[in-house]
Every structure is written in structure tokens, then in C-alpha cells.
């Protein structure tokens, strides 16, 4: 699970180790990446909204 999160974070930044990428594609479960990706994208949007509200307030 932590491994999936780390890979999704790396994808957000756009940088990933070649070795890790291979591993994810060979052993990983695509559904896990998609789900974690969607959840983290929502969290990111929420975080931005929070920061914006704080800055505007």
C-alpha cells in the first residue's frame, strides 16, 4: 500500500525511478493505482481549497 502511494506521489511530481516503474508495471495491480490516484487527486484539490480559504480569510 505504501509502495502504491509512493508511486502515485512520484507520478504527481512527474519523476520516477526506472527500476520502480518496471516493478510497478510487472507486479502492481492497476485498480489499486487508479483508486489511490483518484483519492489522492481529491485530497490534493481539498488541500488547495483549504490553503486558498486560509489565504483569502
Amino acid at each position, binding site marked *: 500500500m505504501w509502495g502504491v502511494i509512493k508511486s502515485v506521489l512520484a507520478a504527481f*511530481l512527474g*519523476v*520516477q*525511478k526506472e527500476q520502480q516503474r518496471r516493478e510497478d508495471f510487472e507486479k502492481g495491480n492497476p485498480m489499486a493505482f487508479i483508486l489511490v490516484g483518484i483519492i489522492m487527486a481529491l485530497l490534493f484539490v481539498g488541500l488547495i481549497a483549504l490553503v486558498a480559504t486560509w489565504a483569502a480569510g
Partner: protein
Amino acid sequence: MRTLLVWLAGGLSLVGSSQAALASGWNMPVGVTDLSREIYNLHMVIFWICVVIGVAVFGVMFYSLIRHRHSKGAKAANFHENTTVEVIWTAVPLLILVGMAIPATATLQKIYDPSDAELDVMVTGQQWRWRYEYLGEDVAFNSNMSTPRAQIRGDEERGENYLLEVDEPLVLPINRKVRFLFTSDDVIHAWWVPDFAVKQDTIPGFISENWVRINEPGIYRGQCAELCGVDHAYMPIVVHAMEEDDFETWLVERQEMAAEEALGVDREWEMDELMERGEGVYGSICASCHQVEGQGSPPAFPALAGNEQMLADIDWHKDTIINGVSGTAMPSFRTTLNPVELAAVITYTRNAWGNDTGDAVQPAEIAERLER
């Protein structure tokens, strides 16, 4: 390394001389409001960040190109992928962008905060003039370009404020927060005064806000900044910023004028007065399309001199001017002109350039027609 230093020094001296270029009018103006100064400073900060990045990136690039050139026997390092380097070159721009977004957002928040204004001015874009209305003060007027057509055609020498002069400037007090409410009667225009750092689209059926607090008295000029038709270039903006006392005096004067004008609606007008007034209105409002001698420029703008339909049917004539003709360039002048101006311009067009119906249209009658 020494080559790099020489280049850096060269780059810095360029930076120094560009400071002079900035002062010479190539740059945006600092303006005359606190906010315009802030916007200018923000612009300069971001400009210099871009310059530093540009010099650094191109410096390293050209240094590498020259120092490690093929003729000197340079061998390419043949490696693939370096996560550390990739993380650095992703994180650094991210930090720079966030660093630029923070001051930019702080300034934007100020721009978008028109609260606590002490004066509200409605600015309406029209093809091709501006209309200013001091809300709650009973003062409203049109602001038409006053540059003579002869200068535009090239028959006369161009004046000092060629295409940047109007018959009635917008008058504002200094040191007071003035809120603008922008809208348009026809197409999208944009009210742009560089010295205020205000450039706001005026959109039909929509009201947008902006505000200004001018620090120095003076005359500030601007232009329509949204292509709005053939006379887009001929609807300049002139703002006369005055000391608060002078502004109050001016406002009272205008209010008295408006009251007098309102009284004028009820009295009987002589033909001569109507013709004189009508000529002025025609010159500032109608002549840009129908031409000074009423010859028009068909087919878009019909001739008024000898216009049979107009001369035969006075009701149609009045309706056309009050309500406009939908689907053509003829706008409604219901709100742009007051009853006296409407009556005067109708009288003028019926009795000028060889038209001689003898009709003297009375303001009272027009006022009644407007109520219907």
C-alpha cells in the same frame, strides 16, 4: 570558468543599460495610484526573476557548448536517468512559480475588492463613446472623442492629443476610493487607463467592478482596448482628477445644469434654439455614421439629407431615433440622450442640409413619448 565570469559581467552591464530603457517609456507606467505602483513593482519583480533565470540557463548552456565542444575532443557522457537531478529540476521551478504566485495573488485580492467606495460611477460602453453616470448624484453625460475628422483624414495637422481627447472628460476626486461599474449597451468594449492600471471589459447585460484611488491631480488618458467596430479607435477615455474641493464644486455645477435641463423639458422651445442645440448633438453623436453634411455612407449608413421616409413620416423618425432599428447599426438613444437633446436633434435633422420641413419638435412631446 573565466569565460563564464566575463559573460556574467557582460550580462550585468546589459542589465544596467536596460534600466535606462525602462525609464524611457518602453515599460508599463508606474501610474498614479497605490495599486498601480504595486502592480508595476510586481511586474518588475517577476521580470527580473525571468531575467536571472534566462541568464543562468543560457549562461550554463553556452558555457557548456563552447567549453566542451567537439573540436576540443569532448566526449559525451552516456548515461540515462538520474532521479536526483530530475527531482531538483522539477522542484525548483515549482518553488519559483509558487513564490511568484504569492505576491501576485495578494495584489489580485486588492484589485478585486471594491468595498468601502465613496463614489460610484457607472461606465457604459457604446459604439463609439463612453457614458458616465455618477450613481445617486443625478449627473450623467456622454464622452465623445473631440479630435476633428479633418485631422484624421490628414487635411489638418495632428493635435497634441490626437485621438486621445474628448468633449466631456470623466471627472474624479483624488484621495477617494471610486468604484466603477462597467457595462455596455451593444458589443464588448474595454475601459483602459494605463495610469490607473485599470483595464476592464464592458460586457452587455453584465456588470463588472473595478476601483481606483488616485493620488495625484491631473489629466489621464486611455482608450477602448477591445475591438468594437469601425470607430474602435475613436472612443478615447480622458479622466480629469481634481482636488476633492474642486470636485465637489464641479459636481454641484453639473447637478445644477441637470436640474436646469430637466426644467427645460417643460417649456416651449424656439426653432433657433433647437437647431443650435441639435447641431451640437448631431456633431458629437450622429455625424460619425451619417456624416457632417447628412450624406451618410450608404448602404450601411443611410443619407439623412433628402431622406424621403424620414421627412414624410415624423413619427417614424422619432421612433427610429428613440428606439433604434434592430438588426442595423442604428442604436437606441433612449438613455443616451435626454428629451431636450432628442427633440433638438430630430428638429435639426428635419431642417438641415436642405431638409426644410419647418417642424420644431418640442422636448415635452418627446418626454411624453419616452414614458409610453
